[in-house]
């Protein structure tokens, strides 16, 4: 694969990740799904780029390395935002009694998570 084509995949992935984070709206399922689709498309682009790097199609320059590092930083940023939402809803689920089961080291379901106090409005 020509280096320019491979790098275009990287740039498109980066753009998709940015767009996914920019339009992420935790309160809107439809937008959450759109963000996820953008990220899936970014993952496909990154796989293509990874294959090109592995095949030696792309020169291993310091500049390219720092671009990849910058993309990774954006992924870390997006992960923190999404993790906040996951943690928020995990807490809510625990309160409504719908917390996912907890598995022990043998793969068996442990005791139900300790129930939290029912929702109390001040």
């Amino acid at each position, binding site marked *: 694969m020509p280096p320019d084509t491979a790098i275009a995949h990287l740039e498109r992935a980066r753009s998709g990740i940015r767009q996914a984070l920019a339009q992420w709206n935790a309160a809107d*399922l439809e937008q959450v799904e759109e963000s996820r689709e953008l990220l899936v498309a970014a993952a496909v682009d990154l796989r293509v780029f990874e294959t090109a790097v592995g095949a030696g199609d792309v020169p291993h320059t310091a500049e*390219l390395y720092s671009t990849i590092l910058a993309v990774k930083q954006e*992924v870390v*940023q997006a992960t923190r935002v999404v993790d906040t*939402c996951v943690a928020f*809803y995990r807490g809510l*689920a625990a309160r409504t009694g*719908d917390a996912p089961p907890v598995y022990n080291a043998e793969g068996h379901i442990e005791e139900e998570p300790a129930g939290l106090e029912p*929702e*109390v409005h001040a």
Partner: protein
Amino acid sequence: MPNILASLSSAGNALDVFQQALNVIQNNVDNSSTPGYATQTLNLEAQPLVVTGGLTGGVAAQGLQDSRDNYAEEQVQSQTQALGFYTAQAQATGTVQSFFDVSGTGGVPAALNNLLSAFSAWSVTPDDATAEQTVLSSAQSLAASVNGLANSLSGTSQQLDTQIGSTVSQINSIATQIQQYNQQVLQSTTPDPGAQAQLYSALDNLSQLTNFTTVTQTDGTVTVMLGGGDPLVIGNQVNALSASDAVATNPPATYPNSPPSAVITDSQGNDVTSQITSGQLGGLLDTRNRVLGSLLGNAQQQGSLNQFAQTMADTVNQILESGTVSTATGAAAGTALFTYDSSNPTNAAASLALNSSITPGELAPVDSSGNSNGNANQLADLGNTGNAAGNIDGMNLVQFLAQISSSVGQENQTATTNQTTQQQVVAQATTLRGQVSGVSLDEQATNVLQFQRAYQATAQVLTVLNDVLDDTMNMMTVTT
């Protein structure tokens, strides 16, 4: 007739109840922009109707219910605390970073390079008075540059102390507001929506300043505790904080004359500094005590700038003093080029100076083996890679300076990135708070699961992206 009267009475009661409901709605509209206010609803309950038993039915008001969700409130407060920390840290480390010249064309790195160049020129013409004078003036410039950096950093410490004091005052002021709320609760029998709005507004403001947890007591008062559990407000008591400077003595100070660290104490004089790990105060304390402490020293460390100043001065002086001013028999021994306060290792950078008594002729280019420019060559080599003389932590003086600049820059970059990310996290947490407020979570269990699954699916894609990027970077042979 009694039935008609009962009907009229029931209808009259209903009108009263619906009037109350309208008042509640009007109050919600009026307070739509009030900080901390949560929409309220009037609970209505049908009254029993027993025609033969004289119960007239109708509707009764069963008290107000607000839409605030304590769990969601805590989530937003917790994320806001982190944002306060990163914002303060980014601003403070930005100031510290501004004193370091990362390009190497100015500040201490440039002054060191000039001195090394002067040594190099002197090694070519060791008897040349102009070359000797250039060494002296370059040494003076380096000392002045190191002093200037140390003073700028000390000035930043003082500015941060002022900001820390101001932040502590704001925390105490908010604690007093919460204490007043508690007093009101203790004196009143029914919750006041206005007072509650003020309480939550105060807690939102407090979360920007420090980390804390709250517990609502059975009497309705709110207890606020710092991160480590030290109470800030209990009932109608405020445990006011104060800020001061002190050299830590536990563990015993290795450098008792070091610059003091910022300390936060409660009203009993207990040191609660370590409990403040988030919020604006946490960010200020982190930069003041950890970042600046690593540069200027504190009770447990000399500080990298002092390490540089002392090692550089000792190395240069040792080389010069080991040689002679000329190759003539009985030539005078060399004189130290630099002086510093050797009684206080944490004051080396601020006190570094050109030896006031040295003259150009007292510089010793001749080494102990009699080589006419042996010492001058050794001094010129101090900045060369692989030269063991003057090394600190395996780095020569030039590399060590670059490492100091780099670590300060890294601190600022990390804080700035964290601040940007945390702004988005707070925005999402606030959105989620709005989404769950006023909703019965038991009734919305299906929605909760749907959102949870959607987020987890997105988190999995992000894990894939992260793994692919890691694999790609591992495949690349260039690592910088």
